[in-house]
């Protein structure tokens, strides 16, 4: 024990238990490192800026890190710098690709693995499942309108639309209340917002903003309604969580780490790998941890594993391709109901935003 670390994770502005990037990535690092007895640590940057993130990377390398894991698109510019500065260090950049500050140059060097996720597919599955299960009044509460959250949300709407069409619903029969909270926190205001939605008749809210989920679950347990979790399987956090739109953060970190230690680095080095349905990178949970026989879909009334497998296959083979981005006029990235409806071709689903 010389006090140095081989694997270092740098958190972005969020914290290590943010129920999102940082937590997922850290769980991956921890699981892999503990199993293989590799020293590991995480570092919180002193300042949430490009320079601050780069300084944290400097610090990690000074401290002996050979592999640096950086969760989140905020690291795109710092990693662009660091990949040249530290050619001997390997970087795993989640949810982003390295580029210069002015976006003029995109380059992923050989010591960087960049990982993206098809959140829209995961969201699509969640929306499809909820409507197939008979729910007609849905809610979406995202944290802030950043690409990952937007993709989850757009996918959710498209999934709901597809299921409504499959069920032959009338136009506008499925209602979705669509909202960004503006933060990623658990607090009384997020809870009040969720409660208000439930009070208006929303049956399930897709809580897509880190710790915002805790507030939504709290509100749901009070009003006896349902929640769809995000990123990781959140069924263990609350009875109200019927399913979760996951993306394999931990799993992807583990695979990349494993590739480094077992001569597979070339599979990821210098390029952008997308984790999606076709490589099991995203999806709804299909198993319950610690209980092989348990049904992961037991909290649905009708939607089940078979229905899930069917729709998942369509995503995996590319026959269904939900949109990931749309054009949004407002600077804040918050789309209006009209923008959502027309860009995502919503007919059966009517959206109200808030």
């Amino acid at each position, binding site marked *: 024990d010389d006090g140095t670390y081989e694997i270092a994770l740098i958190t972005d502005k969020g*914290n*290590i238990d943010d129920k999102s990037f940082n937590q997922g990535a850290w769980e991956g690092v921890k699981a892999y490192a503990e199993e293989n007895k590799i020293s590991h640590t995480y570092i919180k940057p002193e300042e949430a800026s490009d320079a601050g993130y780069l300084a944290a990377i400097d610090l990690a390398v000074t401290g002996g890190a050979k592999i640096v894991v950086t969760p989140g698109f905020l690291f795109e510019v710092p990693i662009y710098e660091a990949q040249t500065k530290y050619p001997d260090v390997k970087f795993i950049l989640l949810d982003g690709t390295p580029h210069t500050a002015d976006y003029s140059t995109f380059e992923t060097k050989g010591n960087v693995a960049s990982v993206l996720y098809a959140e829209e597919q995961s969201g699509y599955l969640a929306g499809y499942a909820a409507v197939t299960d008979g729910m007609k009044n849905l809610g979406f509460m995202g944290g802030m309108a950043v690409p990952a959250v937007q993709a989850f949300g757009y996918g959710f709407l498209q999934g709901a639309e597809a299921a409504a069409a499959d069920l032959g619903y009338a136009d506008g029969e499925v209602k979705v209340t669509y909202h960004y909270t503006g933060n990623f926190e658990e607090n009384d205001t997020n809870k*009040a917002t969720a*409660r*208000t*939605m439930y009070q208006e008749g929303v049956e399930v809210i897709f809580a897509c903003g880190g710790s915002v989920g805790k*507030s939504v679950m709290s509100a749901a347990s009070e009003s006896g309604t349902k929640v769809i979790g995000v990123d990781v399987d959140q069924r263990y956090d609350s009875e109200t969580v019927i399913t979760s739109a996951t993306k394999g953060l931990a799993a992807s970190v583990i695979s990349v780490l494993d590739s480094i230690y077992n001569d597979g680095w070339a599979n990821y080095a210098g390029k952008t790998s997308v984790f999606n349905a076709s490589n099991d990178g995203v999806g709804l949970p299909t198993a319950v941890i610690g209980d092989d026989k348990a049904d992961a879909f037991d909290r649905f009334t009708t939607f089940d594993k078979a229905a899930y497998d069917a729709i998942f296959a369509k995503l995996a083979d590319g026959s269904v391709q939900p949109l990931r981005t749309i054009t949004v006029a407002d600077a804040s990235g918050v789309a209006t109901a009209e923008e959502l409806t027309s860009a995502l071709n919503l007919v059966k689903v009517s959206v109200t935003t808030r």
Partner: protein
Amino acid sequence: MDTVFYLIQNMLPVAVPLLLVALGGMFSERSGVINIALEGIMLFGAFFGALFVYSIQSSGINPQVILLLGMVVAAVAGFVYSLLLSFASVTMKADQTITGTSLNMMIPAAVLLFSKMFFNSDGITTNVGFFIRKIPVLGDIPVLGQLFFQKTYLTVIIGFILLIITVIIFYKTKFGLRLRACGEHPQAADSVGINVYFMRYAGVSLSGILGGIGGFFYSVGILDGNISGHTGVAGFGFLALAVMIFGQWKPMKILFAALFFAFLRTLAYSIALIPFLNDLGINQTYYKMLPYVATMVVLAFTSKKSRAPKAEGIPYDKAKR
């Protein structure tokens, strides 16, 4: 009508922590010690309450019993932490604002440190359902039952019981009389044989107890029993201070102030339920500011005649006249 019930049911769990913590602040300040540390005390109480709940949650004990026990734990924690304030500001005669500020700074960091060291997390997440759909019998009372005994937390009822106890202690007992004397004119209290130091310890300790409970109730009623060093109690300790001043250091006025503030705060996030407000299409940020702005407006109108305890903030020194 439903909306009104909904707003009130929603407001009460928010109002109660404010109420209790402001009452705590009142005890402290009426004994002569400014308690800026309420925010820290709340978080400390909430943290230990949640830690207790976490450690007992799988035992199968009735959630409401857990809540009561957790409340005791939080009260003790708040009390212990408040001793740091009384020691510095009463015994050591330190500046009360400085001490309070340092105590506020200490706790979020300490909670984060502890949670990271032992849970690898920013705080504690529990999974006990404290929510009460309906209290038998009481919940069937028309209107009142619906308002106070349905879709609620035990915290609301306890909050009101503590308010009544507070009023009685404050106005009807010799303890209350002596406490108030110490905040107004400690020399006078001293000259009739009252131990000013003891009374100030008592005042601060009561604020510790109520602050700790208030923090735990915040965690229960708003955060579903969780707590994090990162978000803490979202400035409720400071808001309670405002509520206390707004309530002019008097229990019943504090109740009114707490309800007023909690109502606006709830309203701000329930606009969608109120058609005419919703139709105005005002940027939601303005609603978020509403409680703070409204508090300022009310203070602007009331503060000319409001009167802080005369001796608050001044360390009592027997040897000084």
